[in-house]
């Protein structure tokens, strides 16, 4: 399933436009890039530069107007909506700025939801949840509901959930945007450690230099195009 030469994600001439009123707004303009397996990359840019759109396209949440997105050897732009959903379920993990935990499920059930969707055999689910919560330091909060957790704790649950099914790619959109500095630092270290342990590829959309400093390289996105050379490690 992995592309030769260790390339996990390949973006080829990717374009995406949105209609704003009567006018077309091109958010991504023939973007190309490659991301190697196990690599962590920060996508930096100002608000509206297309960072989230890029993550949506990589995660199969959105489809491009033009170009290809190849993840783990699969051209997901050729997949149907249903197949993209199944692909996303299996290969992608998401961490959001707003955490996006299901408020009516406990911490453990938020993780269980993804494992059940991936049809992980029942006997394996409980130990996996236990292991993940221990890894994020929330073993004692498994029965808690999200609204009683702090922002940092909620994001740690979101990370555990995102990694629960061992995805090939983790996509994080401003993962520390809603956190104070100390919590942000904790979350970044945790994310970095766990992703590297799992050997997955991580793309982080951020405008924070501090977040970018945790990544192997940084790509600047400006007006729908990369301004730094994709593939080159970037100075932080």
């Amino acid at each position, binding site marked *: 399933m992995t592309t030769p030469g260790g390339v996990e994600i390949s973006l080829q001439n990717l374009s995406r436009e949105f209609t704003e009123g009567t006018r077309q707004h091109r958010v991504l303009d023939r973007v190309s890039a490659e991301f190697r397996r196990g690599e962590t990359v920060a996508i930096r840019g100002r608000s509206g530069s297309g960072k*989230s759109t890029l993550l949506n396209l990589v995660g199969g949440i959105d489809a491009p107007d033009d170009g290809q997105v190849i993840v783990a050897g699969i051209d997901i732009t050729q997949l149907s909506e*249903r197949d993209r959903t199944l692909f*996303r379920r299996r290969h992608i993990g*998401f961490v959001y700025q707003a955490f996006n935990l299901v408020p009516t499920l406990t911490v453990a059930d938020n993780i269980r939801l*993804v494992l059940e969707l991936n049809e992980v055999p029942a006997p394996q689910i409980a130990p996996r949840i236990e292991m993940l919560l221990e890894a994020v330091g929330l073993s004692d909060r498994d029965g808690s509901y999200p*609204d009683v957790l702090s922002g940092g704790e909620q994001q740690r649950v979101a990370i555990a959930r995102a990694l629960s099914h061992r995805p090939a790619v983790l996509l994080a*959109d*401003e993962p520390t*945007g809603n956190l104070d500095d100390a919590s942000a630092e904790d979350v970044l270290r945790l994310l970095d450690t766990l992703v590297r342990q799992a050997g997955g590829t991580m793309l982080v959309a951020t405008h924070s230099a501090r977040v970018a400093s945790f990544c192997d390289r940084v790509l600047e996105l400006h007006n729908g195009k990369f301004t730094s050379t994709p593939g080159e490690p970037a100075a932080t």
Partner: protein
Amino acid sequence: MIPVVYRANFSYLVRHPWQLSLSLLGISIGVAVIVAVDLANDSARKAFLLSMDAVTGEATHQVIGGPRGIEETLYTRLRVEHGIRSLAPVVEGNVTVDDVSLQVLGVDLFAEQEMRSFTRRSTVAENDDATRSLFRTMLVEPGAVMMSVATADTLGIAVGERFDISAAGRRHGALLAGLFDADSSQGLDNLVTTDIANAQAWLDAPGRLSRIDVRIADGDIAYREKLESVLPADTTLLAAAGRTRTTAEMSKAFMTNLTAMSLLALLVGLFLIYNSVSFSVLQRRRLIGILRALGMTRRQTFTLILTESAGIGLVAATAGVVAGVWLGEQLLGLVAQSINDFYFRVSVTDISISTASIGKGVAAGVGASLFAAAVPAIEAASYQPRLAMVRSVLEQHSRRLLPVVALTGAGTIVVAVCVLALSGRSLVAGLAAVFMLILGFALCVPLVVKMSTALLAPFAGLAGGVWARLAVSEIGASLSRTGVAIVALAVAVSATIGVSVMVDSFRLSVGDWLQQTLQADVYAGVRRGDMDRDLIADFARTPGVEAISTSRRAWLETRDGRTQILAIRMAPGSYAGTEVLDAEPEDVWPSFDRDDVVLVSEPYAYRNGVGPGDDVRLRTRTGDELFRVAATYQSYDLNASALLMSRATYDRHFDDDGIDSIGLYLADDADVDDVIAELESISAGRQDLLINSNVRIRELSLEIFDRTFVITDVLYWLAIGVAFIGILSAMLALQLERARDLAVLRALGMTPGQLGRMITLQTSVIGLLSGISAIPLGLVMAYVLIEVINRRAFGWQIDMAIAPGILVSAVVFAVAAALLAGLYPAWRAAQSQPALAMREE
């Protein structure tokens, strides 16, 4: 200039058109049902009063006699011997022309001049050639009648045309001599006037009058007293207006019950309004939070929400009034049919739109909107600006309130029970208690839902996985949305259970009663009037007939109302047909045949508070006499006015030898159909009779019974329609509210199908909880309807019978309604875009 804050909110409403539409629709239906029932009731009542007023004319009083009216010589005596001039004799009855039932009014054209405006054209008052010619025709031509243009059109008869009139089962020739003046014929549809001699001949009342109309000047007490002093003992002088009012009031309980049913639709609509308003507040928590942060006061927030609700209420009420007028026209036929079946003849084809009915509808719509919006408005005003942006705080707030709300509900139920126990025989208080029970129950449901979903969720998780658990727990977690929808559906379904169990029990009781009452094998009778005596004798001699019973239904009028006397000559097999409720039959029947006693129907006993050993006062040919009550008997007579008297007793006290119907008891080996055929052949050409087997009579009676409840069906289906909209609205609200959560689930890999199934499961559970919650309230409602409302309205004692099928079908129905209402929201949820999850809130 509209303040910008109102524009901001208005813009929100416009951007959520479905939510706005469903709110408008819910209130509109509630208002429409209220307006429709009010207009239908009002139109029927007005038509009756109009017709009574027209027929009464200028008469202020009426001299009324016994069951067969009064001797016509009394009229002559009053006029000639006592010099009382303002009198007009009347013979009144019913005839049919081509199966159209008409009221016939026989008048003395010489005495009519100042009594009735519509007969004036045929009197000598207008001294022109046409009038003189009409007057002559009416006097000279046999069977000459006048009627309104509309009645002539309905019958397809032109002036000068001859036609047949059928009265008391006999045909007579008639001639349409003229038409009423168009400007004085209002309320006179289905009425024909004729010379008094014609009416006496047709109605088989030679020498008798139905009444004498009297005109007494206002305050002329001496004149009235003089008249009263010369009246014979078997007659009485009654005020015409009072007589009309007493008759109209007979249907009051029926109309009150219909009004209560219409309020049910509004009550269910009330939940819907509450749902919509609280949801729109919830949706705008960010906007409200910003406005509060910018300095909008609590009072301004409260006013903002209420003003908006009043606006929605006004628009919806206006639409509801328009729909109500249309619906009223549809209901009018059903209401008039029931009144005709049970109370009095009313001919009404057009709805009369009254400002009062429209005002009630608008007030109900706007009032209900404001009432329902008050709680969300208070809530919105109470939030701190910062908190207004946090949804979980709102849910936590409603969760904290749950026990308080449930306790208030329990308290309301206790108050309702006290009202039922302490309100004596008041029907309105009984109905108010029913509404309090519903409200109390409604307030308890959210807590029950919260507990039920907490219990059910783990099982759902075990059976279907975490998404199933999510579907169930979401219901309890979003009580501010789902709770009210469940309550709305539960109340509507409980009404179907309550009314169905009541109707079902009633039908069973009536069926059993008919089974017992109809002891004879065959019944023969004339629709109105007397049966031919020779024919009765011939029937008694018919091969296969072993015995006959006879029956006479007579009405006695007093200032307090009308009393119906059933004078029965029992056959040996007849006694078992009357169920004596509070005495030993073997003691009752010998006394019944021998002494001056009566049996009172159960409704009569309840209404008048009499029982065995008490006396009832009746006006006989020798004046008022007391009759001892021997016992109470079971009856489902709607008029609550029946007394049973032996024929021998009746003959001793009343000048009336008429017989309306007979029961024929056949030999064991006689074939019912053969005997009926023989009876029909005997009566052919002599008198048109209704001859039916007891089985057929039972069927016909139950057909009328079922027809009476058609309107009830219509009303509660409308209430369910409102509840359906409530569920649809709540599910759409939930779906919109949870758009982000649904998008997260999609982003995590849940397919559209899985999401759709999740919402479908959720709506099924909502339906199930509604259906199950509806059962206790439905049964309590049935009990109260049977034991309190029916008893107070009609005096009936009904045995409550609960068919399990009603309960099962109610639950199935609730689930089906919720499922149906959930289809579109499920589809919408399935379409949710996972990209939404990536956006910052």
